[in-house]
Structure formats: structure tokens, C-alpha cells
């Protein structure tokens, strides 16, 4: 539950995702101290475990960690793409912050996906229908919020694409034919279609040219600045996190090993793994 006076937008409490049969030893025998996310007893993969954190209203919170540390798993659980094995999540914008969104009906979950949260996937193929036009991709999201007037849909789609700097002239083209940076910007336009107060961004800039990265980062900053959207920004690039966030959580082997002010994480890392991560990048 979220206390309404605290300005917390999203609260995660003990989220775990285990692939495999799972046994009583799974949690205890995995994690950064054990150096693995594979349970030695039963072979299950503990993709993430015991993840608790609060996202404050209007805040951009960074999540960093090496490949396989569980970042995408966490984000996909929040967007209901995966069902967490344990854990609860509360949204201040839903049921007054009193309802664990994971135990809601699938109809309610759809409402949350379409109105309260937007997502940009690490892989654009997950977020976009490559054989729909780029305007069609945005329109699809608008339809989920009961916007059926064709003229209005086109108007809003072009507005969003302009905001994310996708040339409106290319609205009827297929995203398959777009560059990686443009695909990510179409994903952002789609994610924002229904003005959600929360965005989940998974490696939005990975694999993009530096100059294109810069444009996407500037766009994200302006979205927070102008619209006050709260965001979880997942990245293994500390430069991205330094630029965008005030607070950062560090993940390793499915666990959060450290969470703190971003400048503190970078300049005075506490956990041995964070020190390794920072040092490897200096």
C-alpha cells in the first residue's frame, strides 16, 4: 500500500521472478554473495528476487547492472508481460495506492497498461508491429483508450510523432524500414499516446549511434521536464543514468545491491559490485 501523502508514484515490494520448478533453497542459494542466479539445488533461474523500491512522482530512477542481472525481467513483470513469482506493486494512480496490481483481473491490468503505464522495450520488435505503419502503431494504442474518431487519431498520432521528432511525412511507412533510433522514437510516441503518468524505459539508447542517442536522451529529459512523467530508466550505460537520473539502483544476480543518489553511486559506491562496475568504466 502507498500512503497518499508521500508522493510515491509506484511502490515495488519484494518482487521475485523464478524460472523453473523452484525449491525452498532458490532465494538463499543465489544472489551476489553466491555469484549466480541459478539455484544449485533445483537448477531454477532466479531472474530477480526481493526487489523493493519506490518511484517518486516526477522522478527518473535509474536501474543499472550487468547483462543478465534481471533488469528487463523486472520491467516486464511491472508491465504484466511476465507474472512475478512473488511480490506486490502499488500505483498511486490506481485504487488510491491500496491495490496490489498483480492480483487485479486481466481486464483491470489492461486498463493499467493502456492508461497508467507506457513501456519502451529493449527490443523494438516487442514494442512495435513491424508490419503496421508507424501511425498505425500509435493509433492502436489510442484505440485502447476508446479514441475511435479517425481524424482525432491521426491528429494525435502526428502530434506525438512530431514531439518525438519522427518526420510526420513518414507516418504511413512501416517501422521495419526505419533506423534503430527512429524505431525507439516511435516506441516512445506509442508509449506516451494516452498520457500515462509512468514510463518504463528499457535500454532506450542501446545500439544507437552517439548522435542519435543524444536526441533520444534529450527527448526523455524534456518529457520529464515538461510533463512531469515518472520514469524507470534501465540501462547498463552509466553515462545515460548520470545524465537522466537523480537516484539509481544497482542490480547484480537478480538483486538490488545498492540504491542511492546517482552522484553518490558514481563517486562513493558502497557495495563491492558497484565499485567494480564503476571502476570498469573509468
Amino acid at each position: 500500500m502507498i500512503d497518499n501523502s508521500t508522493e510515491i508514484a509506484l511502490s515495488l515490494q519484494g518482487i521475485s521472478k523464478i524460472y523453473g520448478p523452484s525449491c525452498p533453497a532458490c532465494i538463499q542459494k543465489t544472489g551476489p554473495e553466491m555469484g549466480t542466479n541459478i539455484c544449485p539445488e533445483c537448477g531454477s533461474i532466479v531472474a530477480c528476487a526481493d526487489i523493493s523500491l519506490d518511484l517518486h512522482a516526477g522522478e527518473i530512477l535509474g536501474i543499472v547492472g550487468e547483462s543478465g542481472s534481471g533488469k528487463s525481467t523486472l520491467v516486464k513483470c511491472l508491465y504484466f508481460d511476465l507474472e512475478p513469482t512473488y511480490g506486490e506493486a502499488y500505483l498511486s494512480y490506481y485504487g488510491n495506492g491500496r491495490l496490489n496490481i498483480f492480483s487485479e483481473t486481466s481486464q483491470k491490468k489492461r486498463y493499467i497498461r493502456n492508461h497508467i503505464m507506457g513501456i519502451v522495450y529493449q527490443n523494438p520488435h516487442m514494442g512495435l508491429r513491424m508490419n503496421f505503419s508507424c501511425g498505425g502503431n500509435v493509433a492502436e494504442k489510442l484505440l485502447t483508450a476508446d479514441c475511435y474518431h479517425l481524424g482525432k487519431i491521426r491528429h494525435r498520432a502526428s502530434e506525438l510523432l512530431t514531439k518525438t521528432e519522427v518526420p510526420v511525412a513518414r507516418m504511413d511507412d512501416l517501422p521495419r524500414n526505419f533506423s534503430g533510433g527512429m524505431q525507439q522514437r516511435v516506441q516512445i510516441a506509442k508509449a506516451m499516446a494516452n498520457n500515462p503518468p509512468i514510463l518504463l524505459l528499457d535500454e532506450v539508447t542501446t545500439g544507437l549511434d552517439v548522435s542519435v542517442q543524444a536526441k533520444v536522451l534529450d527527448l526523455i529529459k524534456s518529457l520529464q521536464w515538461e510533463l512531469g512523467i515518472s520514469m524507470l530508466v534501465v540501462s547498463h550505460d552509466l553515462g545515460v543514468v548520470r545524465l537522466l537520473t537523480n537516484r539509481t539502483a544497482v542490480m547484480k544476480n537478480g538483486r538490488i545491491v545498492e540504491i542511492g543518489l546517482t552522484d553518490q553511486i558514481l563517486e562513493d559506491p558502497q557495495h563491492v559490485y558497484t565499485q567494480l562496475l564503476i571502476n570498469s568504466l573509468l
Partner: protein
Amino acid sequence: MNDILAVENLSKIFMMHILNGKVIRGCEDISFTLPEGESIGILGPSGTGKSSILKCIYRTYIPTEGRIVYHSLQFGTVDLASAPENIILALRNTEIGYVSQFLKIMPRVSALDVVAEGLIKRGTEKQEARYRAREHLTRLQISPDLWDAYPSTFSGGEQQRINIARAAIVKPRLMLLDEPTASLDGRTREAVIDLLLELKREGTSIIGIFHDLDTMFQLVDKTYDMSVFDSYKAEV
């Protein structure tokens, strides 16, 4: 005058796990008080922990021991050594400013907008914020040719003045200055001192580290000398 800040037995020790648990002393057993509206200069040889003190107050470093008691307008008495992160962020936004020894410049933002940002964040109209930013840039002798350029390409002294303007424009209650005039020449240093003295007259309390003693004595009411600590450290 009441104290705005009291540092009590502050120590910062770095535990370097990746160097087999090697321990590095940042600063040790630091205590001083700062009456509201006054300013204190921290002095001592290189490596004695001057910057570490400021970074602990700003919470870029997590203090190992001691308290940093700050009397805030927003939250009353707060121990900056242990306050929750959202309180620290709120105070950074509204009450506590910091000019770092090494410059961190935001990419792809014009000098004018870098300086205006703090005001806009606090709700000042964009036009008005830009106007005040121009005043500050003029005052710190940044050529108007540079106002629309990105500070990442500026000279060290220009970047330093951008950093000072950016922190000063919001008139923080408490200003932390880490060698703000280190790479300035006489004329621009005078302009910076003049701006800082004006802030002080308007009520800002200052904790500063100054390379050059002449600058320091124009600005501070008292000093905290780290060399005592240094000789102690040498003995250990």
C-alpha cells in the same frame, strides 16, 4: 545569530573492496559550526580532506561517522548524514547549492539555459529566468558570443564561471564552494568575489575552500584549519 549548520565529529572513510578492503581516510573527526549568514573557509594542504567535507555535506559521499545538523526552512532540523534521499534532493533543489572543484557540464544545453535552469525548476517564467541568466553572464564577464554555445567547449575559467552563475542565480541559503576561483585571472576573480559578497549580504551562508588566501580573506568570517588534522594523520 543561530547556526544554520553544525558539523559534529564527521569522519569519512573509504572502504575499497576492490583493493582487498584497503581503507582510505577522507576526513576525520571534523567539527565546526556556521552561524546563519556567515561564511567559513576550510584550509589545509592537498589531500587533507577538504573536498570530502563538502561532499559529505552535499551527500555525494555517505559519511562514515558523525552528524551534519542543518536547520532547513522546509523540514526543520535535518541530519544531512542520515536523512532520506528524497529530503536531500529537495534541499538541493531549494536550499543548498554546490560548486564543485571539477566541472560537470551538461551536454547539449546552451550556456544561457544551463544558468537559467535552476530558476525555471523553481517555477520562474522562462523569459524572466533567461533575463536573469543574461545578467549573471554579463556580470561574470562571459562574452555574449558564447551565450548560445555549449559550455563543454569553453575554457576552464569560462566553465568555472558558468558553474558559479548556475549555483548563484537561485540564491541558495547555504552555498558550498570548492575552489571556485582556481582557474580565474585577477579581473574575473574580482567579478566572482563581488557576486559572492552580494549573495552573502542577502543572507547566504557559505562554506568555501579557496586556493588563494587573498580571495578567502575577502569572503570568510572564520577559518577551519585542516593542517592540524594532517599532522595527526602523519603520526598514525
